[in-house]
């Protein structure tokens, strides 16, 4: 082999797809010029989906793709003008791809006014600083939603759902995953889980409605002494533990049509707090000083 052929061979090896992919998943990116309130949809199989709001009227999407046998499908973008809708979907070109080999990590910067529709069965979804509505579904993946003001609907079969500082209505459900609400200012929160735990930490809005239910997971409510709510707590077999000063309407620790129940008013009773469990404990206690 002469010297030219050797160089050619080296170049071929260097630029072969196998070598390129062996150096780590390649990164692709797109920029879509949008209105200030576009609808963004991401459909993934496994991997992370991270979405953050920014002030620009555009979507900047970065994809880390684990295999050359995966594509990210996107809608055709018109040559001019702003798009109202951006749809991104993981497209497996090989039906045998599974697990880490089917992984795509999405990182998106989107207008703060965006509304989101995210499906990521086996991966983490993290959403931050969004003012539009958010709809997220996972099977085993964790969902983190931080500083949002639109409606939130989050469902996971087995993943943790953590919602921090939401100010819009929230509906969260899981079968085995835990649900956590930290410093919410939402007027309406509905949460249900079968065997996961529910943690609510923060104050309650006047006239707010907070309905939480678990089967055998514990429900912990940690609120400041200034929190004002009417409490309706029921459990078939679980303990009801209250460390706040309640004006009790009734308390039947063992005999009632439900099992255990605790009804009372804290401060002026501005919000409604409805808690139910079958065998999980329900605790209402003052938020520890930070």
């Amino acid at each position, binding site marked *: 082999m002469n010297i030219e052929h050797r160089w050619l061979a080296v170049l071929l090896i260097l630029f072969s797809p196998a070598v390129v992919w062996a150096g780590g998943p390649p990164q692709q990116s797109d920029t879509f010029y949008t209105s200030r309130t576009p609808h963004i949809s991401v459909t993934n199989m496994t991997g992370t989906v991270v979405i953050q709001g920014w002030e620009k009227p555009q979507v900047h999407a970065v994809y880390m793709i684990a295999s050359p046998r995966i594509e990210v499908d996107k809608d055709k973008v018109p040559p001019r003008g702003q798009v109202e809708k951006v749809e991104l*979907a993981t497209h497996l070109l090989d039906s045998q791809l599974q697990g880490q080999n089917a992984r795509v990590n999405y990182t998106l910067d989107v207008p703060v006014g965006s509304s989101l529709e995210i499906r990521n069965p086996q991966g983490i979804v993290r959403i931050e600083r969004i003012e539009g509505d958010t709809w997220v579904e996972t099977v085993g993946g964790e969902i983190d939603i931080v500083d949002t003001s639109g409606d939130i609907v989050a469902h996971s079969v087995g993943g943790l759902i953590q919602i921090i500082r939401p100010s819009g209505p929230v509906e969260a459900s899981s079968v085995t995953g835990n649900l956590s609400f930290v410093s919410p200012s939402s007027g309406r929160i509905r949460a249900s889980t*079968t065997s996961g735990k529910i943690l609510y930490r923060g104050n309650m809005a006047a006239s707010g409605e907070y309905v939480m239910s678990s089967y055998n997971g514990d429900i912990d409510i940690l609120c400041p002494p200034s929190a004002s709510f009417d409490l309706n707590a029921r459990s078939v077999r679980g303990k009801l533990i209250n460390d706040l000063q309640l004006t009790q309407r009734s308390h039947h620790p063992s005999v009632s049509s439900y099992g255990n129940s605790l009804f009372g008013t804290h401060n002026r009773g501005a919000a409604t707090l409805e808690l139910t469990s079958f065998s999980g404990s329900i605790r209402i206690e003052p938020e520890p000083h930070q």
Partner: protein
Amino acid sequence: MNQGDGCLRFDEELTAYLEGEDRPAVLRHAESCEFCRCVLADLEMVRSVSAESGIDEPSPVVWANVRAVLVAEGIIHPPLSFWQRWFPLKSRGLIGSPAPFAAAAVLAIAAVVLLWAPFVSNLSRTHSPTVGIRPAVLAERYTANAATTNQAWQTIQQLEQAYYANESSMEPSLKATYAKSLASLNDEIRECQTSMQQQPQNTLTQEYLSSAYMQKAQLLQSALEYNLR
């Protein structure tokens, strides 16, 4: 217009027709196409059963599910199905042909929703007046509800059979998540049933039991639909 175009238009206008909009083309086509006539008759039957059960209208989810069955079976062909949008790869290869199982599952879900609604509404009706009612009366109500419960339970069992028939083809981590959740719901159902036998007047247990059945049906449906993707 040939028969294929007619079927396509029938499919496009069917949802709107079932929602009460005036779509004469649907009826016109059903008169001339035996296949679409059967589809329409089935859907109208579902609607009439739901009306007899005291439900104003099945939820959009039910109609969406029924429609998904028809799509899965290839009876109707929308331009782009929900699952095609979900995962564009047509042959994900998880199982050979999951459509019949999913179709059965989706129809079963519709049945569970329809059968369960009166049960749940009975529960809500019996919710407040339970205090002061003799246990014998409550037990009688519970027995009356049990027939409905039994039907719904059979439907869930069919769903479960379809799930286990397809379980081996699921991705391991997904399978584990579904299995864990299913076990959790089964525990809930078992415990609530035992509790109901001991305390038939406990309305909170009734609520948990009916909710657990619904959740189980939804979970099984979700797992089966996942195999279609």
